[in-house]
């Protein structure tokens, strides 16, 4: 009686678990790199703003936006249940 008989011995190898771990680590690393690039862009933008060279400010904002969008896409991939 009961559901203890449902417990059928199965292999200890869990490819699904390993894949999940690998994917979250990969996403973390990519988000770190993107964040680092964004900080570089912000630094360049501030340097340009303070130095009076407005030419660099807009491209850095665009690049930062692309990095942010990529980061959001990556975290969305991890959070989507599969």
């Amino acid at each position, binding site marked *: 009686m009961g*559901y203890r008989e449902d*417990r059928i011995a199965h292999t200890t190898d869990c490819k699904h678990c390993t894949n999940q771990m690998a994917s979250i680590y990969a996403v973390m690393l990519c988000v770190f790199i993107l964040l680092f690039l964004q900080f570089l862009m912000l630094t360049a933008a501030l340097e340009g703003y303070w130095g009076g060279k407005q030419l660099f400010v807009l491209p850095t904002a665009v690049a930062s936006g692309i990095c942010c969008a990529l980061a959001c896409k990556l975290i969305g991939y991890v959070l989507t249940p599969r």
Partner: protein
Amino acid sequence: MIDPQMEFFIDPSRCIGCQACYHACAECETHRGISMIHLEYVDRTESPQTVPVVCMHCEDPACAKVCPADAIKKTSDGVVQSALKPRCIGCSNCVLACPFGVPRYVMDFDQMMKCDMCYDRTSAGKRPMCATVCPSGALAYGSRDQIERQRQMQARNAFVFGPQIVRTKVQMMLPAEEGELEMDVEAFMQ
């Protein structure tokens, strides 16, 4: 958050074995069509009497204590949740440890699954699905005052397993003269 006035009551004597709770639970998409409640026959050869088996949401859950992956958590309301999907490793420690035989190991998902008192519904002020569809009141969700006014039996939540007393959030309706329910595990196994 669940209204602290609201409690879950099981009255096995009222169960008529209609399986409405089983099918209603199975319709829920949050556990992919697998029912978290089932009916047990007390003694099929002697009687058609059935008893609904749901998670008793113990105050000191044995399933959570034996989980090696920290996958089973208890909310602040006292509801013991089903195993967390990213953490459960399918070891079945909880299946073996639960004194009420509630957790199920589902091989298709490599996951333990159990009743979580429809936390998505109860935290929003609704009743669990099984209590909503039960025609006989064997599964009831309401305030203690309401239940005691309507019924002659008393709600108890202490179960004795040898030297251990397991206290649960889910209340079982027992005759007034019964205090703690002694579970004869050996008789159960025969």
